[in-house]
């Protein structure tokens, strides 16, 4: 079973349809599936619901899919870096389901792990709790949050072997493993593909069973906020 595909478009072939739910990895612009996003823009598929912590920035990352109006609804925790996002939301063109960041990550993991619902204290007594079941454990209130079961996951790792085992680099890991896990099909883009045996089996962050198709390509890896200290501070 060959998992390696030649391009993002090939890897997405047959997987896209209007009105589908896609889970995307990345935090801000860090560890985002740049190549797969571009291919989804190209495909023209529309009315997408996307579960992703952020929605890129204007003109980059998932922001490109806002510009082309291919997104119907976002499930996110933070949209503060994106003027077009806020415009579409405030004008009613875009639906937005706010999820606390940890709840979003856990909902993705839960979906991937066959857990349809779990209780959390996060958001109790806030807007987030509206319409959600409340249950007491040990005398305290918790709300029920549901697992996310996506049709497709688009994610980015540092390296994968041809059997799909993946490793991530530093904080580019972030939402990628839970997003990968919750998709019926997971397409992974990486910077390097290696042969089985080249990754230490004790160092795999995401076992190959969660990864169905793999592509390799060049990543821009844009930095959102370059912040430095001067050498004199040292």
């Amino acid at each position: 079973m060959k998992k390696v595909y030649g391009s993002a478009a090939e890897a997405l072939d047959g997987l896209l349809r209007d009105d589908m739910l896609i889970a995307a990895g990345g935090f801000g612009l860090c560890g985002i599936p740049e190549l797969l996003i571009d291919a989804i823009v190209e495909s023209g598929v529309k009315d997408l619901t996307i579960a992703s912590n952020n929605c890129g920035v204007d003109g980059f990352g998932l922001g490109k899919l806002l510009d082309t109006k291919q997104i119907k609804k976002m499930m996110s925790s933070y949209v503060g870096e994106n003027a077009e996002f806020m415009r579409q939301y405030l004008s009613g063109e875009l639906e937005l389901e706010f999820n606390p960041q940890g709840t979003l990550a856990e909902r993705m993991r839960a979906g991937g792990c066959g857990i349809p619902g779990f209780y959390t204290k996060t958001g109790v007594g806030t807007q987030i709790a509206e319409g959600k079941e409340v249950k007491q454990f040990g005398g305290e209130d918790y709300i029920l949050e549901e697992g996310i079961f996506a049709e497709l996951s688009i994610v980015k790792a540092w390296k994968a072997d041809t059997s799909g085992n993946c490793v991530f680099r530093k904080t580019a890991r972030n939402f990628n493993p839970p997003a990968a896990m919750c998709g019926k099909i997971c397409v992974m883009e990486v910077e390097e593909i290696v042969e089985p045996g080249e990754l230490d089996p004790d160092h795999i962050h995401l076992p190959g069973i969660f990864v169905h198709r793999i592509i390799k390509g060049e990543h821009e890896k844009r930095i959102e906020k370059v912040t430095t200290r001067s050498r004199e501070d040292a």
Partner: protein
Amino acid sequence: MPWDRNQMAARAAEELEDGMYVNLGIGIPTLVANYVGDKEITLQSENGMLGMGPFPYEGEEDPDLINAGKQTITELPKTAYFDSAMSFGMIRGGKIAAAILGAMEVAENGDLANWMIPGKLVKGMGGAMDLVAGVGRVIVVMDHTNKHGDSKLLKACTLPLTGTGVVDRIITNFGVLDVVEGGLKIVELAEGVTEDELRAATEATIVN
């Protein structure tokens, strides 16, 4: 004279004890790291890192290494990376001793609002709701009043809440207050600020 941003951050740093795992929010809380001195504090960044180091030197930025504010940072020898589900596992699971956060409003019952102004500003809660629900101690650092001079320490929050009854201590430019039974209790006044001045700038009930 009320404290400035750095004095507030320095005062907040006094809240931290040796061995603590701490999450610092964006803005003034980020500055707290500059004032921990010799205390062994481990900073958690909720995008997936324990043991956050300082900003990199120019030219040494790594796009794969950012903090929760999306700023480039560096790692330390004790650093560990993990995914977002694990990161919020440790937050929700109560493993983080303290979070130091900014706020738009704090109520006298410990309610906190810091994620949106309906119709005006929609940023999202990010990890703040998880942090205030999960960490051991929530310390808010903010200006005592807003740009119109109105108190940000209220009888009840007017903005959508981030959490209910979650704030333990508030550090403002006027001083330090604790959330206690019945209202807020003054713990400390900023140098040059009188208790009357603080009371006059505060809408929330102040108890003795």
